[in-house]
């Protein structure tokens, strides 16, 4: 309920602003114009109806994740997560300009959903049981895997996670990949920073021997500097990325899954991938099927 009130307030504020400011004459018509026809398509009282009526959605995403959610100098976040959010918003009848992207980092995704600060989270958000206890997941919309990045030429001869024994292995503090190394490969010497870019730089300086996280993130670094880094290319975990929504919104979850399935069917899913992550990851994946289901 609180989320609704905030969204409504924000929408009202946006309309008021649009009414006052002369420059934003496109915002007001698009908000009211696009929301009304599709709002009728949803059942009264459903979460979709609420969002469609508000004509606005707040999406939590990463702002520092190349290929998935990266906020550039122009202030517009871009990446595969952003495209997925746009697909869902479009289906709700919400214009791209009416999506508000809020930065969520690994540590605040659950609190933001629980407190209603965001309507959904699309932020390379790995589905796992612990998280599933406090939030709900639609999807998965992508299947990543943890991989290893090493210096060009692989001087330490690391072929997989078992070769990390005694090697300085870098990841991000409080992340799932770090947790995986701690529990499954404790013989690796784990070094943790707050961002993956620091890990990458430490690898470039020779201060660490390897960087480990999801392959999609590492691919971005190889793309930036192929003369310095190389990817082992043998993912050793399955990281299904889901769309986080507050608990108890089963209908909304089903709606998202249907939207994803339609996007796969129509080719929009593939296009979204090719225009973002696909610039580095050559094989465009299909939507992982079947969805895991929204029943608790």
């Amino acid at each position, binding site marked *: 309920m609180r989320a609704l009130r905030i969204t409504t307030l924000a929408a009202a504020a946006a309309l008021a602003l649009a009414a006052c400011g002369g420059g934003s004459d496109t915002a007001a018509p698009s908000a009211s114009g696009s929301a009304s026809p599709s709002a009728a398509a949803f059942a009264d009282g459903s979460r979709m109806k609420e969002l469609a009526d508000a004509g606005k959605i707040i999406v939590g995403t990463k702002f520092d994740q190349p290929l998935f959610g990266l906020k550039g100098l122009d202030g517009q976040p871009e990446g595969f997560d952003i495209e997925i959010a746009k697909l869902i918003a479009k289906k709700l009848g919400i214009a791209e300009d009416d999506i508000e992207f809020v930065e969520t980092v690994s540590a605040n995704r659950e609190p933001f959903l629980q407190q209603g600060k965001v309507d959904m989270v699309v932020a390379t958000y790995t589905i796992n049981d*612990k998280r599933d206890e406090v939030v709900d997941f639609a999807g998965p919309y992508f299947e990543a895997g943890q991989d290893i990045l090493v210096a060009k030429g692989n001087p330490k001869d690391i072929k997989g996670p078992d070769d990390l024994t005694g090697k300085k292995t870098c990841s991000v503090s*409080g992340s799932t990949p770090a947790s995986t190394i701690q529990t499954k490969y404790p013989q690796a010497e784990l*070094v943790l920073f707050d*961002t993956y870019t620091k890990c990458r730089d430490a690898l470039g300086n*020779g201060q660490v021997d390897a960087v480990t996280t999801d392959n999609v993130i590492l691919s971005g670094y190889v793309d930036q500097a192929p003369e310095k880094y190389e990817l082992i290319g043998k993912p050793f975990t399955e990281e299904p990325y889901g769309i986080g929504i507050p608990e108890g919104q089963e209908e909304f979850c089903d709606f998202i899954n249907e939207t994803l399935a339609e996007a796969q069917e129509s080719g929009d899913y593939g296009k979204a991938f090719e225009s973002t992550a696909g610039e580095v990851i050559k094989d465009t994946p299909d939507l992982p099927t079947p969805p895991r289901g929204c029943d608790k």
Partner: protein
Amino acid sequence: MDAVLDNLDVFLEGFTTTVGLTLLAAVGALILGTLIAAMRVSPVPPLRWLGTLYVQAVRNTPLTVVFTLVVFGLPEVDVIVSFYRFAVIALTLYTAAFVAEAVRSGINSVAAGQAEASRSVGMTFSQTLRLVVLPQAFANIVPPLASVFIALLKNTSIAYAFGVFEGTQAMNRLINDNGGDVIVIIAAAALCYLVLALLSAAAFNRLERLVRPA
């Protein structure tokens, strides 16, 4: 709550490192800071300039920037040590500037007649400073030094972003593993810092009574 109680060992490991960083950097900063304060009151102008330059440059730079310069700058000149040592270096360099100013204020609080009397009985500048001025100065600056070192204790948390498993990184690990108890875990970490800070404050209070019998 269970997320905290079941993982007390993780907290313990992390905050032990926090304490270690604080103690090592405190000793380093006390030595370096006193030297810089001595430079700032020395009769040799270039030393004074150097001391002033150091204090102004370091005190007016964010700690995160100092960390970045140390952790990623020193390897550029082939100085590569463990991330723990890098953290101690960064914290020492940063805190020394604040210690230097506290010590300098203490030196200035010692009546000029003390130094004049020492010089007139034939003591050198360094003897005057070591045997007459600094002992009185330190007695006067226990409260401001306490503030500097409590700030240092909290500043060690920046090391979490630079490859050191200390209290804040322990907190982050638990947050990722226990998405449902985020606030409890953060509160527990805050409590750890609070307890450590209160303990250091108590120690400094005791020290203050010891050095100022009046």
